[in-house]
């Protein structure tokens, strides 16, 4: 049983060393296969009228802030969010273009900030994973040393085996979660682009 734990921990550490090699040397803590793009650039998602005159003014409009919060949330299906946007813009007869600009400025700020939070979180987890891998490696060596003694202290062996088992389990769980969370920045990109496109089509 103990040997199986040691073998599992060693395999995991070897695998994690591979995974820890960042694809882009500029971002050594970036754990995802997807390339890290630190910020979404405005021209990549918006070809509508310039937003220079709106900046953070969207925060002063309670209707816009409410709609930004509602439609930015990924739990709301995209087609529903687009429908809400179309309805809002249709009711802004007086200045549809300004309403569209304010709404997109809000979505851009909000979703870009959310994306940065997710990406920072991913890098933080990556750093933790490195520390965890070091711990697993050290405990594996310590366990092997204990077992090599002529009369090993079985209680110590059991304790360390148990600790190692938990450490590897937590490491594996985190790795699975990271793989899933790596998809989130792309999902946010897609949502911002789709909502921006819906706004542009409405105000054109």
């Amino acid at each position: 049983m103990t040997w199986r734990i040691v073998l599992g921990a060693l395999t995991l550490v070897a695998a994690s060393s591979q995974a820890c090699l960042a694809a882009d040397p500029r971002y050594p803590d970036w754990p995802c296969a997807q390339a890290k793009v630190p910020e979404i650039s405005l021209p990549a998602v918006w070809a509508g009228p310039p937003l220079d005159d709106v900046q953070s003014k969207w925060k002063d409009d309670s209707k816009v802030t409410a709609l930004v919060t509602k439609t930015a949330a990924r739990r709301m299906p995209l087609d529903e969010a687009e429908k809400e946007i179309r309805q809002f813009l249709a009711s802004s007869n007086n200045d549809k273009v300004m309403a569209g600009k304010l709404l997109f400025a809000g979505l851009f700020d909000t979703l870009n900030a959310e994306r940065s939070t997710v990406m920072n979180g991913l890098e933080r987890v990556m750093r933790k994973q490195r520390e965890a891998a070091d711990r697993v490696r050290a405990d594996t060596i310590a366990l092997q040393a204990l077992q090599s003694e002529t009369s090993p202290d079985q209680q110590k062996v059991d304790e360390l085996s148990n600790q190692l088992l938990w450490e590897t389990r937590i490491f594996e769980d985190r790795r699975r979660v990271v793989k899933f969370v790596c998809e989130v920045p792309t999902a946010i990109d897609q949502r911002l682009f789709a909502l921006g496109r819906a706004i542009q089509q409405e105000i054109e």
Partner: protein
Amino acid sequence: MWRHCLLPGLAVWLAAAAPAHAYIAYVSNEKGNTVSVIDTDSWTVTNTIKVGQRPRGIEFTRDGKFVMVAVGDDDTIQMIDTKTHEIADTLPSGPDPELFTQDTTGKILYVANENDNTVTIIDIAKRARLGDIQVGVEPEGMTMSPDDKILINTSETTNMAHFIDTTKREIVANVLVDSRPRFAQFKPDGSELWVSSEIGGTVSIIDPVKHAVTGKIEFSIPGLRREAIQPVGIGITKDGKTAFIALGPANRIAVVDAATHTVTKYLLVGQRVWHMAFTPDEKYLLTTNGVSNDVSVIDVASQKVIKTIQVGELPWGITITPQ
């Protein structure tokens, strides 16, 4: 007399009432391992066909009976029966086929095999391999001159457009272009060859007789980093006057005056726009947008995006009914 007036009137009414553009488009979804079928009358996905692994290059046979799709990770080209929407047959490509082109008669298919630096020649009717031509590293773009005499193949790593004599089946000229050439297209009159370079960020205009680069189209979108502008797919109207260039992660199609080689407009379409196809009447241009998983419909006359259609995961190539 009234009959003479009524009949032409009825004919006009019927013509107006009939759908003006009922074509079928097939889109290869590289990650979804499917092909989406789009009705261009209703602009909806009417079917999703499961195909092999990593479908990319896609094209109708000239008789419209089959859609050929290169499934790179399965090292073959599958033929979809357009009536049953089932895989009816396969064609013997080399390893990792990506793009292909056929001659004007629709008899011979030329396939770029990304993994072994060859172009495979296939007899479509016999489903038989006729031979291979050695080309540069990572062959990709494929196009045929309007007279069927010269086949063009671009190689991603060698950064060249290879001119291949289709009778001798050998390379007769090489033209160096900018980094990572992706796609090649002749003007309909054969006077110019256009080659897009994904990393170089340009489209090279090549004189096909002199085998020389005579000009380059460059792109500039305020606020967007140069490396985000990656030209890939090219579409040129039959009259040779207007061209459309897909700019990848710039999420835009550049509209180009094909006579002066200047960009006249940028159209925001979808994320990572890759390839495109015109409807046969050239009223519409459909583009595949890989990251937003959709297809944009551009009204060619007004040069406006009029519709977005969700398809499968990572749409790559597109082909539309030939008639």
